[in-house]
């Protein structure tokens, strides 16, 4: 047998004490009136359930009499039914096992839906990953492969002459994604341009979800965040574009449509 948890035992004891305190009152009254009295004393049992049990009991009492009335036909059945009727009548009164007011069944509690199992999840509109998502992913991957293949077919990756430490190309440029930093080099001390600013940038990006306390993800609710990020992205995009296309020999400002491109990918 499993152990009954202590808090449940406590709760049961409290309930028993309460019913014991209420018991003498209805016991003193008539059996028929008992449900009404107990419903006044203990509001946990809904009135309509008490009424239902009361009517059921009344029907049972009638039923107990009926077979006894009909039993006149045969002695064998009369013998059999007479005790049955007796027990029903006995159950109608307050027997040993019955509860207050003579109930043979007691309503312990009414459990409302959702009081034990709190169903948080609402049914969601879902689709099967196969085929809906897999097909979309496959098409995207295929399109990406096709683009890459065609682009690679027609445009060759640069391979300049062998590396030579004695021939510094003019201009010398970093890969395009670092050209924003190289552009900053023209304005700041190398430590600021090469370490502090990009370091701060990454640090701020990491902190973004912890600084942004606004729970909404609607653009109209987060104008500040959206503006800030756009400013941040544009800052780097503009620097990269200037560094890529508008910087010529000596990393001086040039116009690509006049002096040509100084840019390799």
């Amino acid at each position, binding site marked *: 047998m499993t152990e009954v948890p202590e808090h449940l035992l406590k709760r049961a004891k409290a309930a028993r004490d309460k019913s014991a305190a209420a018991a003498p009152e209805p016991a003193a009254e008539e059996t028929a009136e008992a449900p009404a009295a107990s419903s006044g004393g203990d509001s946990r049992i809904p009135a309509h359930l008490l009424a239902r049990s009361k009517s059921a009991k009344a029907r049972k009492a009638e039923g107990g009499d009926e077979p006894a009335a009909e039993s006149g036909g045969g002695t064998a059945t009369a013998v059999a039914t007479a005790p049955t009727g007796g027990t029903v009548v006995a159950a109608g009164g307050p027997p040993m096992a019955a509860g207050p007011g003579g109930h043979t069944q007691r309503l312990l509690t009414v459990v409302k839906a959702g009081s034990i199992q709190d169903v948080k999840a609402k049914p969601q*509109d*879902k*689709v*099967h*990953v*196969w*085929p*809906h*998502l*897999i097909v*979309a*992913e496959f098409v*995207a*991957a295929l399109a*990406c492969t096709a683009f*890459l*293949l065609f*682009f*690679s077919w027609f*445009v*060759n*990756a640069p*391979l*300049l*002459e*062998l*590396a030579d*430490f004695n021939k*510094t*190309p003019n201009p*010398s*440029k*970093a*890969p395009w*994604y*670092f050209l924003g*930093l190289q552009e900053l080099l023209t304005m700041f*001390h*190398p*430590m600021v*341009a*090469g*370490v502090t600013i990009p370091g701060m940038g990454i640090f701020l*990006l*990491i902190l*973004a*979800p912890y600084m*942004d306390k*606004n*729970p*909404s*993800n*609607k*653009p109209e609710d*987060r104008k500040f965040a*959206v503006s800030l*990020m756009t400013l941040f*992205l544009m800052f780097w995009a503009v620097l990269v574009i200037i560094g890529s296309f508008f910087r010529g020999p000596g990393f001086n400002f040039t116009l690509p449509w006049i002096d040509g491109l100084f840019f*390799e*990918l």
Partner: protein
Amino acid sequence: MAKTMQGSPKTKVQDKIGQLTDSVQGSQAWNSIFRPGSIFRKGYSDSPRNRSYVIMNSVLYHLHPVKVKRHAVKVSYTLCLGGLSFFLFIVLTVTGIFLMFFYRPTAAQAWDDIYTLQTSVTFGLLVRNMHRWGAHLMVLSVFLHMARVFYHGAYKAPREFNWVIGVVLLTLTLLLSFTGYLLPWDQLALWAVTVGTNMMGYTPVFGSQVRFVLLGGAEIGTDTLLRWYVLHVLFFPFITVIFMAIHFWRVRKDGGISGPL
């Protein structure tokens, strides 16, 4: 009469194919390869149960749940940027392994190897082009993925930490691309890396040490090439795969991709 004469060998072939299929699909080897419920064991007919089985009984189950919210399959919401970044990583791994067969990371041989690859290896030039442009495309797609996630507010609770992992992955992508930049050992590679590492040398307090560790010496040379090669083909891919695994796992644990605006 003639019809039955023509028809009988045909059905015999079909019977044989049927028997062969049954014996293959009933064999222990076949059943050891495909899990119970796999469509390769029991065939596929379109039903909700079989749609679930396709995912549940394949390795895809590591990446995708059986069902996702309807908005998650809307291409206009994600533009597939995260998935494409992952796909490009796979393409770069495949093409990169191909390139490794023809490349030796020493100052004396690297440039010649690339040149030979382009001129005398079948599809060598094409695969190198794909690796190069794929790398640039991946930097772009990871960057755009970050922008998309920000503008959708998808970094908000409970996805804060996955955003942090994403920033780490962005940094790793840049490092992967940058370490690969040196490997052709041409003028473009040498001087781009010179500019880049000179900047890193300005790290406060231990700048010269950082530069020394990165270059494997005081100046860029054959040691640098070996060092960056190992970083490029093993170290950074290894770290990136680990972070990607956590990234994808957290996407599912945090309740799939973020909801509509």
